């Protein structure tokens, strides 16, 4: 097989990988993206669709802010906004302990310029009278929202292709080698050679890092989600809770999407399935937040495979062992909102050797030794 010579090979076509290919192509870089299945097929495509900054780990907030700038311009940049709506994000507390947690986060957010509005019970219930009696406080972020995850990664991939990137779907990487200068990446059909390799392989990114002598303690997880039949639209903000055991939003077509806990995933066979028991547990938790959803029919449940790091924040940055290797994986359930910004950051790391966005806390080096 005659190898395909290129500047950058990106492994993994989720939101982060597609965005990386797109940003590199925009800067006239030759880039090949290799995706085992279809772009956006796993965590990027089957997640809950929350697009929020509120509640993020401080280490993620700068990337999140960067990403939000891209989200706002998506339509003009890639031809679709992927049903992105700035509907607000309302994080709820169901007891005093959780309310204190919301209050503590206000200061964190303020330090990063993220505007939040704390709502004690009375104001909260005035503004959102459909909230249940168990909810005692809320924190509202007006600039957050939600989007359709099924549309984003494929749309970015198309923008990348239009900008000149070579997007290869159903191209599973079977071998990666490095001779000190050049990576040789083989699929069943072709071989690619490039001085730069970007690892955006989600849960499977852990194995790629390990291949280059920097193990990352990643585990797979499958967020358990479901959707109801359409009902009249009334839940405008995207809802979350302290602790994250339930999240819920309604789209303007009327369907209510909710999730919490984990389904079952088998990353070896790339198979996952939702847990009926956890879906039913989510019923009770969802009804605590919005009691009037009682009796609405649930029509579908699903999950996918994501990678979770022990500290629940991703690995983003250059490899600590191998020149030309860059990582962005293990998004721990946060990749959908971060994906677009990650691409911008990775393209800077590859082409400029640095990025204005602080990413040091996300270095893979934090797991060394």
């Amino acid at each position, binding site marked *: 097989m005659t190898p395909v010579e290129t500047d950058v090979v990106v492994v993994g076509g989720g939101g982060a990988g597609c965005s990386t290919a797109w940003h590199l192509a925009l800067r006239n870089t030759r880039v090949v993206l290799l995706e085992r299945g279809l772009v956006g097929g796993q965590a990027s495509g089957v997640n809950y669709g929350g697009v929020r900054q509120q509640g993020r780990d401080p280490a993620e907030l700068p990337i999140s802010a960067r990403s939000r700038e891209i989200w706002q311009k998506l339509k003009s940049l890639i031809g679709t906004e992927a049903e992105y709506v700035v509907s607000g994000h309302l994080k709820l507390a169901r007891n005093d302990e959780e309310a204190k947690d919301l209050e503590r986060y206000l200061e964190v957010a303020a330090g990063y310029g993220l505007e939040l509005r704390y709502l004690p019970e009375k104001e909260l219930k005035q503004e959102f009278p459909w909230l249940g009696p168990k909810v005692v406080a809320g924190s509202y972020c007006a600039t957050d929202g939600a989007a359709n995850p099924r549309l984003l990664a494929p749309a970015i991939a198309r923008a990348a292709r239009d900008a000149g990137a070579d997007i290869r779907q159903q191209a599973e990487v079977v071998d990666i080698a490095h001779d000190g200068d050049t990576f040789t990446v083989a699929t069943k059909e072709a071989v690619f050679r490039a001085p730069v390799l970007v690892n955006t392989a989600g849960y499977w990114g852990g194995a790629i890092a390990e291949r280059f002598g920097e193990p990352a303690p990643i585990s797979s997880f499958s967020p358990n989600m479901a959707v109801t039949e*359409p009902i009249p639209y009334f839940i405008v903000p995207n809802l979350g809770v302290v602790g994250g055991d339930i999240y819920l939003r309604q789209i303007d*077509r009327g369907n209510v999407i909710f999730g919490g806990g984990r389904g079952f995933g088998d990353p070896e066979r790339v198979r996952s399935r939702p847990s009926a028991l956890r879906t039913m547990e989510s019923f009770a938790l969802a009804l605590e937040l919005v009691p009037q959803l*009682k*009796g609405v029919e649930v029509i579908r449940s699903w999950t996918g495979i994501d990678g979770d790091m022990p500290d629940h924040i991703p690995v983003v940055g250059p490899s600590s062992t191998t020149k030309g290797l860059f990582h962005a994986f293990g998004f721990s359930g946060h990749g959908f909102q971060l994906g677009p910004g990650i691409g911008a950051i990775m393209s800077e790391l590859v082409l400029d050797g640095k990025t204005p966005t602080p990413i040091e806390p996300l270095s893979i080096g934090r797991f060394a030794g």
Partner: protein
Amino acid sequence: MPKYMNLTRVSGSQRPRLDFELDGARCGALEGDTVLTAAVMRDGYVRRSEFDQGMRAGFCWMGACQDCWVTIEGRGRQRACATVVEQGMRVKRS
């Protein structure tokens, strides 16, 4: 003749009569009628489509097409084709 589906009885009309409530209004039925039959006999439809705003009057009549969901007091959401009318039952179409 109803404006929508022209459902027509052709046999078994000698059954005892029942009354139930359809969107707050009294609706007659025959014992053994499903909610779908009784609602469509009266108004020619059983629900309104969320996306094209057109009326629907069931399609498969066997619990597969999911196009006849109604709300029944005390029982929640039910398929009208699979629910037999009972005296005094309260049915909402929306």
